């Protein structure tokens, strides 16, 4: 562990074994058939998923095709990409215009162009996101755990003072919020392994600070007082029991987290301004990222540029103190951000502004700190988009977006339908090859995967492989094994690794 110097390893072991013990006593799911699994050598200690929620068109980002500029009255199928392509640091790999900074660090990464989403019938983003994050198509008969929760359950926290599964940037009070909650959970693994949600990265410090208005001094006093009152409480006469120990240990853990030096990592105000501005150009301290959700066209995305950057900065700071699994999302809100049902071209200009600088900076910062080698960055989306095809060319599903016979306005210029036959996943660090492409897609519509298809089970198996977890690992629920990749069938794509 290269980033293990900030805490005591002994503490970590103590916490982990205590958690395991409590899990057994409480009837939490056990590992099933652990003995049969081969030991895997981990190439990463931390995973950062950069989530492009809403369906990121690969032909407009990391897999550009023939560019056709907008002309009034053009045929709707006349364009494959609405941006010209640009070179990257690697010969032969081109990105879409607007991703220049990420292109400059492509020599540190591996690009999968052949990720293929599942067939779930009529497209519903939250169902595909459920499948991406749990590896299982919803609904399931038991509550399936999020991949972050599997990491938390299997590997535990890297630093006991940092929650093992941190989820940055998603609110749950929008149209499909309930559907998002259905997979943003530890499910049957138990809430101990659930997400530590930070919906607003700029307010992350509040999540680990004493409650509003409480000074650190008072917070410490309150805790001391609690310990004294606890010692004075006659409940001691009931002796030691599992419930009491579980309660006291959880409060201790919380207090340790809130008062540990690692908690400072949550506070973006402690980051030098010039360094914040590398993630968010022109950032002003205290700057808020707010926009009315009904903001028309590209207005919403434009006003939110910077929020994802702060999330990436937070992810870097948390990685430095020993986070295990972090997800940073551009945020999924129906019909906003990557969910472009219209105005695709214009809105992607903003979306690329949101992500380009932060991705590159995250890679460079981790590299400069010597952490990139043991941190796997995974940029992904639930599926891609296309101007014409909804679903897959040979498995089309009900169209959700009207495509006019002639494109008379820029409103109809872009990738507005949901395409599931190819998509891009960009990986950095954590043992993946540098400057490598895996998978090929067709150059003409349908721009589907034609070589080295990667499905979710195999993508997950690859991520688990990097973290030293077997795709056949299973937890027992209702007496049956629930595998971390569906039915244990995931196979790591070894071509991704150096």
């Amino acid at each position, binding site marked *: 562990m290269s980033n293990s110097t900030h805490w005591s390893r002994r503490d970590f072991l103590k916490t982990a074994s205590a958690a395991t013990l*409590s*899990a*057994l006593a*409480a*009837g*939490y799911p056990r590992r099933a058939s652990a003995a049969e699994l081969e030991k895997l050598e981990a190439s990463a200690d931390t995973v950062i998923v950069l989530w492009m929620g809403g369906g990121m068109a690969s032909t407009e980002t990391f897999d550009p095709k023939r560019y056709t500029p907008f002309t009034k009255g053009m045929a709707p199928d006349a364009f494959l990409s609405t941006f010209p392509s640009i070179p990257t640091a690697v010969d032969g790999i081109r990105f879409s215009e607007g991703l220049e900074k990420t292109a400059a660090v492509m020599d540190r990464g591996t690009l999968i162009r052949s990720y293929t989403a599942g*067939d*779930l*019938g*009529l497209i*519903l983003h939250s*169902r595909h996101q459920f499948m991406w994050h749990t590896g299982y*198509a*919803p*609904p*399931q*008969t038991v*509550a399936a755990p999020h991949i972050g929760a599997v990491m938390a359950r299997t590997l535990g926290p890297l630093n006991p003072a940092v929650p093992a599964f941190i989820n940055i940037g998603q609110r749950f009070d929008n*149209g499909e919020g*309930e*559907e998002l909650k*259905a997979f943003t959970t530890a499910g049957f693994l*138990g*809430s*101990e392994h*659930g997400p530590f949600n930070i919906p607003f990265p700029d307010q992350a410090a509040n*999540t680990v*600070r*004493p*409650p*509003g208005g*409480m000074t650190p001094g*008072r917070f410490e*006093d*309150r805790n001391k*007082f609690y310990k004294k*009152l606890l010692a*004075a*409480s006659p*409940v001691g006469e*009931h*002796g*030691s*029991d*599992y*419930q009491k120990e*579980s*309660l006291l240990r*959880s*409060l201790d*853990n*919380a*207090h340790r*987290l*809130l008062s540990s030096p690692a908690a400072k990592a949550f506070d973006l105000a402690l980051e030098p301004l010039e360094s914040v501005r590398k993630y968010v150009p022109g950032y002003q301290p205290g700057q808020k990222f707010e926009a009315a959700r009904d903001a028309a066209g590209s207005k919403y995305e434009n006003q939110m540029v910077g929020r994802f950057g702060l999330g990436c900065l937070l992810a870097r700071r948390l990685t430095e103190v020993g986070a295990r699994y972090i997800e940073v999302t551009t945020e999924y809100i129906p019909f906003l951000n990557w969910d472009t049902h219209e105005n695709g071209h214009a809105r992607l200009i903003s979306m690329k502004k949101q992500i380009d600088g932060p991705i590159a900076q995250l890679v460079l910062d981790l590299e400069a700190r010597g952490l990139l080698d043991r941190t796997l960055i995974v940029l992904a989306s639930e599926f891609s988009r296309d101007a014409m095809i909804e679903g897959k060319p040979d498995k089309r*599903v009900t169209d959700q977006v009207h495509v006019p016979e002639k494109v008379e306005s820029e409103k109809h210029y872009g990738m507005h339908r949901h395409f599931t036959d190819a998509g891009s996943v960009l990986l950095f660090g954590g043992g993946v090859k540098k400057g490598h492409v895996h998978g090929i897609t067709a150059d003409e519509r349908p721009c589907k995967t034609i070589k080295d298809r990667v499905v979710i089970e195999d993508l997950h198996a690859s991520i688990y492989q990097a973290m030293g977890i077997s795709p056949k690992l299973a937890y027992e629920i*209702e*007496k*049956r094994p629930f595998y971390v990749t569906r*039915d244990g069938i995931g196979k790591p794509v070894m071509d991704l690794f150096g």
Partner: protein
Amino acid sequence: MKSFAPALSLMLAACLHAAAALSPAQIQQLPPPGSRPIDFQKEIKPILEDRCINCHGHGRAKGDFRMDSRQTLLKGGTTGPAVVEGESAQSYLIELVAGVDPDKVMPKKGTKLTRQQVGLLRAWIDQGAHWDESVSFARAEPLNLKPRRPALPKTGEKTANPIDQLLAPYYPAHHVKPGKPVDDRLFARRVYLDIVGLLPPTDELESFMASPDKDKRAQLVRRLLEDNVNYALNWLSFWNDLLRNDYQGTGYIDGGRKAISQWLYSALETNKPYDQFVAELVHPTPASEGFTKGIVWRGVVNASQKPHMQAAQNISQVFMGINLKCASCHDSFINDWTLADAYGMAGLYADGPLEMVLCDKPTGKTAPTKFIYQQLGDVQASTNKEVRLESLARLITRREDGRLTRTLVNRLWQKFYGRGLVEPVDDMEKPAWSADLLDWLAEDLADHGYDVKRLIEVMLTSNAYQLPAVAATEQTDPKFVFRGPEVRRLSAEQFRDAIGSVTGAWYPNPVPTLHQADGHTNHFASVRSVLVAADQLQIALGRPNREQIVTVRLPAATTLQALELTNGSELADLIRRGAEAALSRKPHSSDELITTAYRKAISRPPTSKELHLARRIIGDPTRLAGVEDLLWTLAMLPEFQLVY
């Protein structure tokens, strides 16, 4: 779950080819039978058990072939007789296990038989295939199904609670010396929380403790059971979990789900007899149909999650305590239920018999609709779904169904005692640690008109319930011995309501509109947690999102919960409101304030040491921040969060 579609097609292929006699050359190749006498019990039974029964016993009949008994073995399956007495070389069974045709080897899955084992089978057949009649591989008579009424042991005490009578021989048999009943304070806390889900109000607690009446505990239990509104609000959470009812959640987005809150509230408020309660869920009215309607997701869903299959799974789990989930994809590996069982049950809720889908691959075979426990009877065959469901409801709730009552008895026991009579509570084919207790209480429930409140009264007035709390043991420990109720945690809703009782801070408005028995609508003394959608605090404390049925909430405290309690804005806000209210009550001394807080929160005055410590924190003169910190600290004490 594993998919076995390839195995299925192989099996079908095997069935199509009839057995052909082996040539002399092939017979030569068979392992020799040997001539020493074979012991069925010792030598043959283990082979059958290990290699054959998974597919040809316990109700399974791959290729229509059962090895339940000697008769079914001889009879064989679709390919004709399996065994010819005295003629092992002519027995198709031997041909298959010996692997004469490499494409048709039995067993299909797992290790093949050794030559020595085949030789043993041959010798056994040659010697007449004797089968010990006591051995049967048929599906066993399910446990805990038919009603049984054990006699109550005589204890000498006329007024003894039946639970205590039944446990009287249990204790000495298990070397348990039951402790003394807990004091009035702990007893009151238990029953208030268990019946109405609230902390005992200070004045009520004091008059209860002061009462010299010998019968006061039983009276308190009865009085709390008569608080119909708060009883309903407490048990609404329990049933919302079981029936996955909520005010928001997946499915509501586009009408793919229907709440049953009004029906459920009324059923609890009026203590609807349990048989009727279940009948109205199984054969629903528009007000109760949300349960069997299930959750309809948009797009394509796994065949095992179609609404009619959800209904089959949920009815079986909630009311019968059995798991059909595995069997809704393939014959279960963890119990005896088969795909045909699950589809037979699901067909009752579909428009008619369903084509079975094996791990998402259609089989082309239709499962006749049928009830899962044929021992209890079957559902009236009809093309009319209404007729079928009415018949199903009658079947599940008839007096001869001892599973319905046992499952409820067990769930309540688990709630009150921390651990079920049968564990896990959704596996009612497991034996109870006291079959007499389970069976007697179940019969008693049916005998008394399925009156759930009466059952609760029996349970909570027993001495067993009043024993000192013991530490929780591992859920499925086979060596479990009952010594008293386990220490339990407040549920999310109980915790939030307890904070409400201490601070006076409740929720502003109920989410559902609930019409009440007395003609009022949403007439509640306070808006309790169950009446609103889950907020951050409730979620952190374990209120589930109800996409799946939840029958037991995870009992452990977690770090994320503790974080929410330590710095979450919701609890901090409630505590502040409580502190402001406490300070606004005048006149007061700081000692009075502290004592009141202690009495409300943990049902007792502070000790002198505690009083001394608390004075220091709230300050002199009292400070708002100090009172807040005192209230928060009280709420974090095990005495507050745990039920002892």
